[in-house]
């Protein structure tokens, strides 16, 4: 099974909103705690190391792109 990057939610805005709302009113430290737990829960639900690795790689590429963009702006 490969990482699915097509849109899987019928209403993606609802999913995004649910995550945003979970962080409302939290300090940065509390938000980081929440995210750490969320990542582990979702990773376990996926239960596939290859998919998890693909997801990590995608997130890392995105960070790399963002830092390159930042450098170009400077």
């Amino acid at each position, binding site marked *: 099974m490969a990482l699915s990057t097509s849109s899987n939610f019928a209403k993606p805005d609802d999913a995004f909103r649910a995550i945003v709302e979970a962080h409302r009113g939290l300090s940065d430290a509390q938000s980081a705690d929440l995210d*750490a737990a969320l990542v582990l829960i979702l990773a376990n639900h996926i239960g596939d190391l290859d998919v998890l690795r693909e997801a990590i790689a995608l997130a890392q590429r995105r960070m790399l792109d963002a830092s390159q963009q930042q450098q170009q702006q400077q």
Partner: protein
Amino acid sequence: MAQSKVQFGYRRNPDQDRPAGALAEHPVAVVGAGPVGLSLAIDLAQRGQSVVLLDDADRIGEGSRAICFSKRSLEFWDRLGVGSRMVDKGVVWSVGKIFHGASQLYQFNLLPEEGHKRPAFINLQQFHAEAYLVDRVQQLAAIDLRWRNRVIGLEQRNDQSVLTIETPDGSYLLRANYVVACDGARSSLRQMVGAEFAGQVFEDQFLIADVKMTAEFPTERWFWFDPPFHAGRSALLHKQPDDIWRIDLQLHPDADPAIEKRPENVRPRIARMLGHEKFDFEWISLYKFQCRRMEKFIHGRVIFAGDAAHQVSPFGARGANSGLEDAENLAWKLDRVLRGISPEALLASYHTERSAAADENIRESTRSTDFMAPSSRQEARLRKAVLSLAKETEFGKRMINGGRLSVPSVYDSPLSTADLDSWRGGPRPGASMLDAPIAAHAGDLAFLTEAFIKTGTRFALLEFANGVAVDPPDGVGVIRIGGKDGLLDAAGLVGARYDAEPGTAYLLRPDGYVAARFRHPTRTVLDAALARAAGIN
């Protein structure tokens, strides 16, 4: 503090009186009489080899040091004739509990099934284990154990090494066809061959205390994250024989070892943990650790085993146990090469199999250590999330890493013959044999591991009755299950654990690992599998 040690005398040996032109020549010199060197020497001697065993000390070390010996190590020691003594003295355990703060998060059983001769683990002070091994060595005339013989020089020639050995009477030389360095983490042989020993150093310090007390804790491994008696750090409690308890406390990386080690500073910590002061110290030690291994375990005719070749963190009991697995892996191969019945290339499989095992042990113990001592704020956050999730989820419990305990590696080995038949279970080629209860018609065997020992711990064919009988190749022992004259599989566990059907056969190596398995073996495929497993291609 009491110091448990056994003193041995230095004795002059005839090699010291030889003229320079006529050096003594030995097939094997083993350097280091710790658990690994002693066990290797016994295994070699039982196979008929003469062994010179050299040690720079004249006593068994103090302190409990390695305390957890695995089922696999006990099965090896059974083959060496010392298993029962170890188990009779040791504290048998299989259950571990993990606590966070004051509450229990998780419990695991390392051997949840019946029908094994040996338990998952025993706890036994290393000095007891060494003393029993020395007793066994002294029953074997083929082992020449020389205390206070320190190797100070190594010269490698084409097919021999010349060792310079320093003794209280001065130094002497001896020649050996093979040298096996079991001389520990600070191996001087490793320095002599100029090998690197690079790896990861962990900054956190751990304090080990052996305390003597009578206590009613169960014989289980208890591990705490952030216990009330040692806030913010981890702790481990383990029972040893003689009313001794091992306590490991994680310290801050910047703690001063000299100060932390003083009994008056250790005592209040332990008192907080135990809730009382009725204990005495046997041993206190402070350590930092490293995870590292040699790139090559074989340097010419010098072979490295145990801590000399690889070092891991102590969480997981992977130090001494992996060294003993090195010894059992090497002994039969070296014996065959010395006899000339296998080519020297067989020894290369020792490096292949055991360096992969070392990598696995390093990986596992590094993960445990990283979990115990997170190295960034985010790592700490992830650990906190795991510990909090563990209270209500199964997956969280399984993710807690308070040490993953040693299990034998499964070798991806050039000696294995790949499965051609289909299997639903059973140990695959490269895995170690599984024990199971049996009954002999004669009635003196109770376990499959005992039947294996009775065949002489050589290559053996484990075959299940009512298939077409195959003559085993020369020199191969036979363990027959079922049929007219076979062993009884009364509980059906041998069949179940080996996924057996009538005619199924497993070819076991002399170290008890599976070399090949067949649903319907023929002599041709057995011969081929045997040749491959013996390194004859």
